[in-house]
């Protein structure tokens, strides 16, 4: 679906690269996460991949088209949701979708259905300019799926949304992926990445540091812990024990054999902890 080789991009057209030597491939049906702190170059990469920014250096292939010689018709297969919502403020939500829908040569979804999906049907005939930030964001999001895209670019799809709506959006992404859509997802929210992505790329200062599945990353880099709360002399004690260190393992056995465990659960390293460990930098 996507092949990127030696991609560089500089906004000032010099050696000052916002994106450096980026390389990755995304296969059909995959949800690929681009994870990195603010200013890492995530949106820049998406910009080049969607043809909004000129391809300066490197090779990029998207849905079978070489981005150096883009064809307009390739956008029938692509959907793009933007970081900053961009809808016509002077048109209503429905008018926004209806106009956009007619620009495609392929079968499109029903605008009203989409509005319903993200809970905007009651304001379908309201001017988008009067929407709240989250409402505009949802409108931008559903507009990107009007053409049932084979390849779906999502730049920060859940940022700034309240948790209920964010989880609705995540469900829609999962559902679309199940139906076959390939997703390129950009975020600095590791929970979203963890939950949705088959593979993630860690990107910092324009460079990809590693690419792997969240599961592999946790296996390789994450230390597993068990958190136990147990009664000792009628007092509740809470301990966190590593499953790697021998002394901790022995202690865990001891607690299990005394049999006074109240609560016990495993604790995995979060993607964020792994990110910090691998890159030495936080995600904020």
């Amino acid at each position, binding site marked *: 679906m996507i092949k990127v080789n030696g991609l560089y991009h500089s906004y000032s057209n010099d050696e000052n690269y916002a994106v450096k030597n980026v390389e990755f491939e995304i296969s059909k049906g995959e949800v690929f996460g681009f994870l990195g702190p603010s200013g890492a170059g995530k949106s820049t990469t998406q910009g080049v991949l969607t043809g909004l920014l000129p391809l300066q250096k490197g090779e990029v292939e998207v849905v079978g088209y070489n981005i150096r010689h883009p064809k*307009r018709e*390739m956008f029938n297969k692509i959907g793009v949701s933007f970081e900053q919502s961009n809808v016509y403020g002077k048109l209503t939500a429905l008018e926004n979708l209806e106009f956009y829908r007619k620009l495609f040569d392929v079968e499109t979804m029903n605008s009203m259905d989409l509005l319903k999906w993200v809970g905007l049907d009651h304001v379908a005939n309201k001017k988008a300019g009067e929407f709240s930030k989250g409402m505009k964001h949802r409108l931008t999001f559903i507009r990107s799926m009007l053409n049932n895209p084979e390849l779906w670019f999502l730049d920060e799809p859940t940022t700034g949304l309240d948790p209920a709506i964010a989880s609705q959006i995540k469900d829609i992404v999962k559902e679309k992926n199940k139906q076959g859509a390939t997703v390129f997802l950009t975020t600095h929210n590791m929970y979203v990445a963890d939950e949705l992505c088959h593979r993630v790329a860690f990107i910092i200062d324009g460079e990809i540091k590693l690419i792997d599945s969240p599961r592999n990353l946790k296996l390789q880099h994450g230390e597993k812990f068990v958190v136990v709360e147990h009664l000792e002399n009628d007092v509740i004690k809470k301990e966190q024990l590593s499953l790697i260190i021998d002394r901790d393992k022995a202690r865990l056995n001891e607690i299990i054999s005394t049999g006074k465990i109240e609560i016990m659960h495993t604790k995995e390293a979060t993607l964020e902890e792994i990110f910090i460990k691998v890159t030495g930098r936080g995600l904020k």
Partner: protein
Amino acid sequence: MRKLWMTFLKDAKLSFNSFYFYMEIGMALIFVAVLLFVVPENFESSQKFYIAMELETADTETFQQLMGNSEDVTVLDNRSEIVNAMKKDRSSVGAIIRKNDDKIVYEMILQGYENESMKNLIKAGIEGEILTQIPGFSSQITVRTLEMDSEKLSDRINIIPIYLTMNVGLMGLFIIAAYIFLDKEEGVIKAYAVAPVAVWQYLASKMMIMLMMGLITSFITVLAIVGFSVNYLYLFGLIVAFNTFGSALGLFLSSFFNTMVKAMGVLYVFIMIMMLPVISYLMPSFNPMWIKWFPSYPMMFSMRELLFENGDQSYIMMQIGIYLVLGLLLFVAANHRFKKTLTV
């Protein structure tokens, strides 16, 4: 074509919802109102002439008979009355006629700002008047600017070509740039750019909006001021050609900038330069060769030909052709540039 039409319908809806549209219509209506109710059909252009005669009664009567029928000439009693009258009307001139040894002599009284050529004109006027003593000469005292054209429009209609040129050819430059930068700011250009439509369709739709507005405002103005004596087919042709040129130029210029503020300076300079030919239009004596190369020059003069009863139709047709071609070339250039810069 279907997508272009969809885009045009959307842009039309947006502009009906926007301030520019009503501003332009409003300006056209204000212009019409000012022309109809404030501007006189013809400006007062003749000069008042005060005359005193220090002659014998018989001669005075002869003079008065000859001159009394002219509205612009007032016969007064003596020098001090002339001076007083001239102080009240600073554009007037005066003369005192007397007889000296049987010869008629006159003394010109001027305001002081008149230059040599004006003095000569006034002199010629007075001498011509004195010659009227000889039977067979008719009164010829009113001094008027010589007309280059045999036909003359009323002053009110004469202003219309300036308005149409400004409105259609020049303001379009600003407004189409504003539309593009508004879209850039709202980010909607990016959404459009990732749909299976071409940049030229986006640009062409904007030009169609400008054309629609240009046609509406121009037709309102010409209908209200001139009425039906104009060939509206030619008017349509001229507006289409000049509007295409103006908005394509606006597109081309704005393709070099990424914000309205940055583009403003260049657009302003262009508009100011293009306004220079207005001077030629209003003052036919200022007509250097180079000014004819400014696009607004042929625009105004072909609009004027259109308003003449027997205007030069081949000139009109030629300008329509030239500006359509120029406009299309600029459009191609703008499209070429915007393909790379529209979303950056």
